[in-house]
């Protein structure tokens, strides 16, 4: 039987950990969607941008060094980089600034537009950010190291003979901390209540004196923070490069499965997809040629949506003429 197979548990656990990573990206989507009804396609590029910025600060790169070299300035680095913690704070600052710019330039003129228009605007945003990120920090693959433990965990290896990366365990811990703190933030702080009010009803929130613009700015900053965390985790795993932005494509089926409006949905969806695609790849993949991870999540989500169009935990879709 398959559950006696020792590989089964190893795959199960690595699937769960991968699922946590997916959930981390999906979380950024859910936050923005709940507060502003915007389906932010640029979340993956946001993570890439955050990771690039972090590496840039860490290694002391000069932004736009390539462009400056056109004007005869050939320096690429300041003397030394910043320590990790300072670089993290600076990157967060950049993300907050970026959030403000996005709200002012892109979202403000598009208030009251249909969701699908906003969605397409975020595709445009993804292109802009990708290009700006590459122009600022260069397009080469960069290594990101912020001192997280790496390599297989010896304790687990000795005790159970399973090969599990320490990095994935720390990612899971970070993700759990992030989710718990976000939940606390949105449930018990004044700001969090304002956020939920905006998510509930824009007009009612405006009428009790909540500023939409500020709330959007905060939401985009928070999802910038989530992007930074996701970028750091994925970047530490596989290097900071263009393909990092493709994790957004991994997070989309997670969202569909879990429902666009639900934070628990993002987590559960992430876990289901993480485990599902690993098991499918291991047991069925070899029979049909392998590399099924690219599409399995989408097919699963597609079939699932046929029976439950709002996803697992999404709000019931009610339509009126």
């Amino acid at each position, binding site marked *: 039987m398959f559950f006696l197979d020792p590989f089964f548990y190893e795959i199960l656990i690595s699937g769960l950990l991968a699922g946590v990573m997916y959930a981390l990206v999906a979380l950024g989507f859910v936050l923005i969607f709940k507060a502003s009804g915007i*389906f932010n396609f640029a979340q993956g590029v946001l993570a890439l941008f955050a990771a690039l910025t972090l590496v840039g600060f860490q290694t002391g790169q000069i932004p736009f060094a*390539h*462009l400056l070299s*056109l004007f005869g300035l050939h320096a690429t680095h300041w003397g030394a980089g910043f320590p990790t913690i300072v670089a993290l704070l600076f990157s967060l600052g950049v993300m907050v600034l970026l959030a403000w710019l996005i709200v002012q*330039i*892109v979202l403000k*003129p*598009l208030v009251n*537009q249909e*969701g*699908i*228009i906003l*969605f*397409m*605007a975020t*595709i*445009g*945003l*993804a*292109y*802009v*950010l*990708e*290009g*700006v990120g*590459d*122009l600022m920090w260069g*397009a080469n693959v960069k290594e990101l190291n912020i001192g997280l433990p790496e390599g297989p965990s010896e304790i687990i290896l000795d005790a159970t003979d399973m090969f599990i990366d320490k990095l994935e365990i720390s990612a899971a811990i970070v993700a759990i901390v992030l989710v718990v703190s976000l939940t606390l933030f949105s449930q018990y702080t004044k700001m969090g209540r304002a956020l939920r009010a905006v998510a509930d009803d824009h007009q009612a929130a405006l009428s009790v004196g909540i500023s939409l613009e500020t709330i959007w700015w905060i939401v985009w900053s928070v999802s910038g923070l989530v992007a930074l965390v996701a970028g750091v985790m994925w970047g530490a795993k596989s290097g900071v490069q263009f393909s990092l932005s493709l994790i957004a*494509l991994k997070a*989309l*089926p997670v*969202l*569909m499965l879990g429902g*666009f409006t639900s934070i628990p949905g993002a987590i559960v969806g992430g876990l289901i997809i993480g485990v599902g695609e690993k098991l499918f790849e291991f047991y069925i993949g070899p029979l*049909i*040629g*392998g*590399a*099924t991870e*690219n*599409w399995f999540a*989408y*097919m699963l*989500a*597609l079939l699932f*949506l*046929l029976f439950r*169009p709002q*996803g697992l935990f999404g709000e019931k879709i009610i*339509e*009126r*003429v």
Partner: protein
Amino acid sequence: MFYREAGDFKTSYQSDQATFTLRLDKILFWGLMAIATFVVPFFVTEYWEKSVFLPFFIYSIAALGLNILTGYCGQVSLGTGGFMAVGAYASFKLMTGIPNLDMFLVIMLAGLVTALVGVLFGLPSLRIKGFYLAVATLASQFFLVWLFNKWEWSYNYSPTGQINAPTRDFLGIDVTGPTTAPWATYLFCLGLLFIFAWITRNLVRGHIGRSWMAIRDMDIAAEIIGVNPLVAKLSAFAVSSFFIGVAGALYFSVWLGAAEPTEAFAIDKSFDVLFMIIIGGLGSILGSMIGAAFIILLPIFFKNVLVGYCGIPTDIAEFTQIVFIGALIIFFLIKEPHGIVAYWRTLKEKLRLWPFPY
């Protein structure tokens, strides 16, 4: 006053529905077509054919297809690249399986195969809407590209996994393979684009096009007044995929001559075609072509001007181009959600009264 009629003088339904309301429009259009058909082929060089005209014609057909689905029927699709791959691989199988088949038939049959696949992937649209559907169409993109990578039958067990177009003809004139003349492929694709634009125009002003637009504007209301959403949505998927399949078949067999799924039909293709219809104009035939021309010509412009004249390194020019396209998308969505073609409409309205606007 100038170029426009000064008011509404239509007296019959026919004239109200006419494609060209002015005789001048008609003369201009047919004049342009005559130049494109009888003059340009004598001057077209390989460079112009391969990097300007063929991409423009082929992407115009794809954009027309996506515009039917997204612009007219309101179903956003991100699976264009996958459907183009279906068209390309279907044409490849047909070309190698039935060597004597005329290229026109190959292209049409490839379109039909794609239409079938499109209907299959369109089925979820009956249950899911909006972003959910947009994301669901990504499933077709990833699944189909994976399929053509792994399914050896689809590329005739070639060891590299690449497909190459053999020499095939249209009415005795070679249009695929290495022996083609630039004018032949140019005219072949131009003719197809003309046919498809004509079909689109007649579909969207007829019964079926109106039911698509009703679904787009509000599907529940459309259902209540008697539009069958099953028929309307699936027919939009079928027609749209047919067009995109034809474009994919031409893209592989006539334009590139060789293709390999991960590169040639990647998700960027889906985005490119979506950008074409956003920039050109959603729900507009002219808009599809303007958008296609824009997205095709922009990289050429950047390459020639920035790299060629200003001496900027290629990678910087490329990133600048990405930023520029993204910014342009945002700009159009904010300032003119109906695309470039809306400027043309405004201009026509203005011309109607010019130079005495009061």
